C-alpha cells in the first residue's frame, strides 16, 4: 500500500481507512494481534490481513459492520488526526490546479501543519517530483516525516524544521511552485520567489483574513509577480431524499356543473372558455358524448362524495429532492495565486 499507488490486498503495516458512515472514518496501521474498537464493535487487525480493500468487515460483538478502504489523500484529509487547522479537499483541489502541478513538479510549502495538503501534493507530483516542506514546530515535523514514511511516500518529500519567515527556505531556483499557509505570508514573498526556478513559476498563498490577503497582494506585486488573483471556493453538499409534501386543504375543488347528465348546452355560458371548448369537442363526437357525460357525472358524484368526506382529490408533492444541510462549511480561507515570469 502507498498513497501514490493502489494495491489490492491488505498487508501488515498498511495504513487503512475504516469507513463507518458518511464522513465518519477512522484510520490505523495494521498490526497482527491488535484490535481496534469502533461504535459497531471491535475490528481485529488479523481479520483484515489478506482481505481485499473495499471488503465489508463484520465487527466482533455483532453490532454492525464497517468497510475497509484503501487510503487516498482525500480520505486522509477527512480522517487524519488534526494537529493544526487543516486545508480541505475543496481548497486542495483548487491549489493543485492553480499551481499547474503534474508528475515531475517540484514544490515548496510552508507550513507543513498536519500534512493534509502535503499528501495531496505528493500524490500529484509522483513518481518523479519532489516536495520540500517546512514547519517551525519540531514535533509536527517529526510526526509528518513518520507519516510520510508509513504511507510509502517518504522518498518524495523532504521535511525540515525551519522558520521560513526568519531564515528563508535555503533553496535557490529549484521549484516550479510555492505554497504558503502562514500567518504572515507577506514577510516570505521575497524568499519564496528565490526558490522558484529561473524562468519563473507559480505561487499560492492561503489566508483566512482579508488583511493578510491585502498585504500579500501588495508584496507580490512589488516583487514582480503578475496575474495576481484572489479567489474563494465553498462546497455545498446535497443529500438526496424523497420529499413528500402533503396537498394543502383549500376546500373542495369547484366542479364543472351540478346539472343532470346529458344536458350540457344550457350551462355553456356559465363555464370557463376552456371547459367550453372541451364540451364542444365532446358534443361533436356523437359516440363519446354520452360516455363522457356519464363519466362526467361520475366525477361529479365522486366530487360530491369527497366533499362530504372532506378529502382532497390532489395527491401532494412526492419527488426526489436535493436537500442542503442546516449548517455547512462556510469560509475557510482566500486563495491568492500569482505567476512569475522574470526575475
Amino acid at each position, binding site marked *: 500500500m502507498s498513497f501514490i499507488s493502489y494495491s489490492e490486498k491488505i498487508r501488515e503495516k498498511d495504513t487503512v481507512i475504516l469507513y463507518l458512515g458518511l464522513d465518519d472514518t477512522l484510520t490505523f496501521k495494521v498490526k497482527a494481534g491488535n484490535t481496534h474498537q469502533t461504535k459497531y464493535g471491535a475490528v481485529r487487525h488479523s481479520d483484515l490481513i489478506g482481505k481485499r480493500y473495499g471488503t465489508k468487515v463484520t465487527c466482533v460483538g455483532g453490532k454492525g459492520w464497517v468497510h475497509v478502504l484503501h487510503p487516498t489523500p482525500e480520505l486522509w484529509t477527512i480522517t487524519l488526526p488534526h494537529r493544526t487547522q487543516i486545508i480541505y479537499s475543496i481548497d486542495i483541489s483548487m491549489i493543485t490546479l492553480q499551481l499547474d502541478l503534474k508528475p515531475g513538479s517540484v514544490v515548496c510549502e510552508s507550513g507543513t501543519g498536519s500534512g493534509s495538503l502535503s499528501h495531496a501534493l505528493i500524490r500529484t507530483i509522483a513518481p518523479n517530483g519532489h516536495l520540500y516542506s517546512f514547519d517551525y514546530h519540531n514535533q509536527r515535523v517529526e510526526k509528518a516525516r513518520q507519516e510520510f514514511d508509513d504511507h510509502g511516500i517518504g522518498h518524495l518529500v523532504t521535511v525540515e524544521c525551519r522558520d521560513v519567515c526568519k531564515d528563508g527556505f535555503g533553496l535557490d531556483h529549484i521549484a516550479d511552485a510555492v505554497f504558503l499557509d502562514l500567518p504572515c505570508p507577506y514577510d516570505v514573498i521575497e524568499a519564496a520567489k528565490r526558490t522558484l526556478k529561473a524562468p519563473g513559476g507559480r505561487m499560492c498563498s492561503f489566508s483566512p483574513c482579508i488583511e493578510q490577503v491585502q498585504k500579500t497582494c501588495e508584496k507580490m*506585486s512589488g516583487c514582480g509577480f503578475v496575474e495576481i488573483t484572489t479567489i474563494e471556493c465553498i462546497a455545498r453538499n446535497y443529500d438526496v431524499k424523497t420529499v413528500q409534501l402533503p396537498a394543502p386543504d383549500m376546500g373542495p375543488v369547484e366542479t364543472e356543473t351540478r346539472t343532470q347528465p346529458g344536458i350540457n348546452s344550457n350551462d355553456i355560458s356559465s363555464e370557463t372558455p376552456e371547459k367550453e371548448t372541451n364540451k364542444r369537442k365532446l358534443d361533436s363526437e356523437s359516440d363519446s358524448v354520452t360516455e363522457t357525460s356519464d363519466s362526467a357525472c361520475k366525477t361529479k358524484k365522486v366530487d360530491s362524495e369527497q366533499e362530504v368526506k372532506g378529502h382532497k382529490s390532489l395527491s401532494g408533492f412526492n419527488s426526489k429532492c436535493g436537500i442542503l444541510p442546516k449548517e455547512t462549511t462556510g469560509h475557510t480561507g482566500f486563495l491568492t495565486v500569482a505567476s512569475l515570469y522574470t526575475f
Partner: protein
Amino acid sequence: MSDTLKIKEGDYVILKKGKNLVLAQALCKRKVNLERKYFVLDPLIGDNYGTSWEITKRSIKKVEEDQKSDDGDTAESTEVGDNRNIVDDNTAQKLSHDEILALKKDGMKGEKLIEQIVENSATFKEKNVYTQEKYIKKKKAKHLPIFTILKPTTRLLCSMYHAKTSPKIVLLRYDTVAQILALGNVHANMKALVVESCTGLLLGAIMDRMGGLGTLVQLFNGDAPTRTALDGFNFSEEHMKVLHSFPLNQANSLRIKTGKTSSEIGQTVEPLPAVTEEEKSCDEEARPCKKQKIDSGSENDNQQGAKTLSTSETEGQSEVSIEQTCTNKDRIADSNSDVAMATDTKESIQVSNNMDVDVPIEGDDGQLKRKWIVYPERQARREKKRKELDAARCIIEEGNFDVLIIASRFEPCPMVMKLLEFLSPSRPFVVYCQCIEPLYECFSKLRESREVVNMKITETWLREYQVLPARTHPMNTMSGSGGYLLTGIKVAKT
C-alpha cells in the same frame, strides 16, 4: 526545465490580453486573430513564454522589461475628489475617435497616447484618484495592443474553454475540473475509464495529471471521438499512448473477464498477415449477404449484424481466438463507415485513386455480381483500427480500473450502472452533470445497489476578489454555476 519554456514552432500557445485568453498554434507565416487584429507569430518562436508583445501592422514586436508600464494600482490618496459635478454626456473627451486613430497612425503610441487622451479629458482632474487610475487602465486596455504569450496548462485551457465555449464542454467550470481530478485521485500509473463530452478537455486534464504513465480508456459517442481540445496540451506522441478509445455503442456488449491480461492477448493479435487471411475468409462467407453498402441498413445487413453480435458474445465468453471475434466486431464497427467488405486476391485492379470501386464481374453461374475492391491503404487503416478496438476491449474487460469519470451530455445513470462493474473495489467514481436532477436517480440507484459508500452530491460556489488598497471587495460578477458532482467509493458487493 528552462528549455521547455522556449516557444517551439508547432506548439500551441495562449495569447493573453487582459482577461481574454486565445489559443493559437505557433506556425511560421500563419496569421492569428486577437480581438480583430491579425498578425503572425513568427517573431516569438524561440523566445520565452511569459514575454509581452505589441501588435504592430501585421506582426508583433517584443515589449522589453523596462518598457513595461506598471499596472497602476498604486494610488494612495488622502484627498478624495468625487463626481458631484460630473455629468456623463459624452462631451468630456475633446479628441474624437478619428483624431485618436490619426494620432495612432502617426506613430504615437503607448504612454504618450494615453497622456494625450487624459489631457484632453475635461473631467479627468475632477475625478477621485482611484477613478483616475481606473480610467487610465481602461484606456490602456483599449488603445495599447499588448498581449502576453503563455504556455498552455490545464488551468488556462479550462478557464478559456469555460469563458468562450462552455456549452461545448457541458458547462464544466475549471474548479469542477480541479475537483474531479482530486476526488478521482488522478495520478500517474493509474487505470482510468472516462466518458466525456468536453471535446477532449477533461481527457487532457486527466492525461496531464497522469504524466504519460498509466492507461486511460475513453468511451466515445458516435463514429470517432471529438478531441480538438487535446491539441492545446501539446502532448508528445509518447504521452498520447496512454489513451485508448472504445465506442460507447458497444458498451453493453462488454463483460468483465478474469484470466487473460491485455499483454497476453496483445501477442495473439500480433502477426498481421494471419489476421488478414482470417478476415478474408470471414468476409467471403459473409459476402453473399452483403450486396450493397452496409450503412444502407437493409434487412440482410441487420440480421447478419445481429447474428455476428451474438456469435461474438458467446465466443467472447468461451475465450475463442481473438481474430475471429475481431472480424465480427470489425463488421459492426464498420457498419457506420462506408468501407465495404470483400477482397478477392484474384482481382488485383490497380487504380490511381483511393476510392473503393464497385466492379461488375461474372460469377460462376453466369450472373453478373457486384464486388467491392478495397485498396491496401484503406485496408491497412482498417486493420489498425480493428487492432486498437480489440486492445481497448481487452483493457476494459480486464476490469481493475482505478477511477470511473463521467462528464457527458447523455443521461448519466445507465452509464454509471453499467460501467461500475469494471471499477475495482475501494476506488472512487465521479459523475458530473450540468443539472442536479439527473444525479438524483443515480444516487438512489447506487444507494440501492449497496455497492457504494461515501456518496455525495456537491456543487461549488466560486468567487473572485478585487484586492487593492482601500478598494478590496468581491467582484461584481461571478460564475452562476459550475455544475454538480456525484462522487462515491465502490466497495465489494455485499
